């Protein structure tokens, strides 16, 4: 059991997927503080961040089979922590919004326009090949097969690249909505 403490993330994850549950403890020790700080950076509440970080770690355990090693484990956790915290905050915000029960269509349109601007700004900061792929697929409506043909890649490789880009963009988008565009752009290197 103790010998697992010195092994790589990849080996621990393999063990965990095989059912060696103690591997989770080592991953927990390694990454729960990182997750805590990620949650705290969003919610600005230490008590809540502690609760959320536990939930994020347990969620990661429950969904470990969905981690396919295409990114670093820390990046995967970072995305889960970001989404989980934002979801928590939005749910709580939604409760108070619902209680006021005054929908404002004009504001929604403005929000939507602003969100599009944010998204385009984020896309424009992506590496050129990643940006081109996303724009061709989602703006120009090119098919996966056509993109594969144009870029000399298989359809599955295109799908994988699109998936990674979407995940990265989603995390950055969430950051931008919470902290502003500048903070999100500064986070590019961390992702």
């Amino acid at each position, binding site marked *: *059991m103790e010998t*697992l403490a010195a092994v790589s993330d990849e080996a621990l994850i393999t063990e965990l997927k095989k059912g*060696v*549950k*103690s591997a*989770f*403890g*080592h991953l*927990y*020790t*390694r990454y*729960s*503080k990182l997750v*805590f700080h990620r949650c705290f950076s969003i919610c600005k509440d*230490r*008590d809540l*961040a*502690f*609760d959320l*970080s*536990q*939930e994020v770690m*347990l969620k990661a*355990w*429950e969904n470990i089979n969905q981690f396919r090693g295409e990114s670093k484990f820390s990046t995967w956790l970072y995305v889960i922590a970001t989404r989980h915290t934002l979801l928590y905050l939005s749910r709580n915000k939604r409760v108070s919004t619902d209680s006021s029960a005054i929908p404002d269509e004009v504001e929604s349109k403005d929000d939507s326009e602003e969100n599009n601007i944010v998204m385009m700004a984020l896309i424009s900061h992506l590496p050129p090949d990643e940006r081109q792929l996303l724009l061709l697929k989602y703006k120009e409506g090119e098919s996966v097969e056509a993109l594969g043909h144009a870029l000399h890649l298989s359809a599955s490789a295109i799908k994988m690249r699109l998936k990674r880009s979407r995940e990265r963009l989603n995390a950055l988008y969430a950051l931008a909505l919470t902290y502003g565009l500048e903070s999100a752009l500064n986070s590019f290197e961390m992702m």
Partner: protein
Amino acid sequence: MIFQAPRVVFPFHGGKFSLSSYAWAKELAGKVHLPFYVFCALSPENLFSKIHIYHEMLEADGYYFTHYPGHASDKTHVRIKTGDFLPTFQRYLQCHPSDIVVVDQRQDFSDVEHASGLMAYPNGLIFLRSCEGITQDNFSHILANAEIHHLPSDFYLHSHRGGYVSKLLRNWIGREN
């Protein structure tokens, strides 16, 4: 008397503590299906170290999941109060007589003054003597060696049977104080 949902409480004064004792206390909470709480009190000038407390707890949870693997839903609740530790904790015990307190003797509770201070309250108390060589298998052994106060006398005999202990504890908690 207003019924209060019982909890397993691990007091932590912010200094050194035994990860093994923490893990044992959390495992006890899981076995008897009670929520697990860490109680901590910090003086106002030390409140900056709140984040340190959370770091310690996350570290301790990592230890717990390593040594007691298999409890995916166990969560630690932390209550941090402001004030000197012992009087603050005593006030807490007064308000939560149903809680079961697991004391790590490596903390400052081992001396007579503190121990008797805690025993003045009706809470169940478990003073752990040693948790070395902790494994899932020796959970009962550690309990058998512990000093137990205000809990049913045969509590430790049945500790490996979570359902039974849970019933036992609930009967005890539901007693007239």
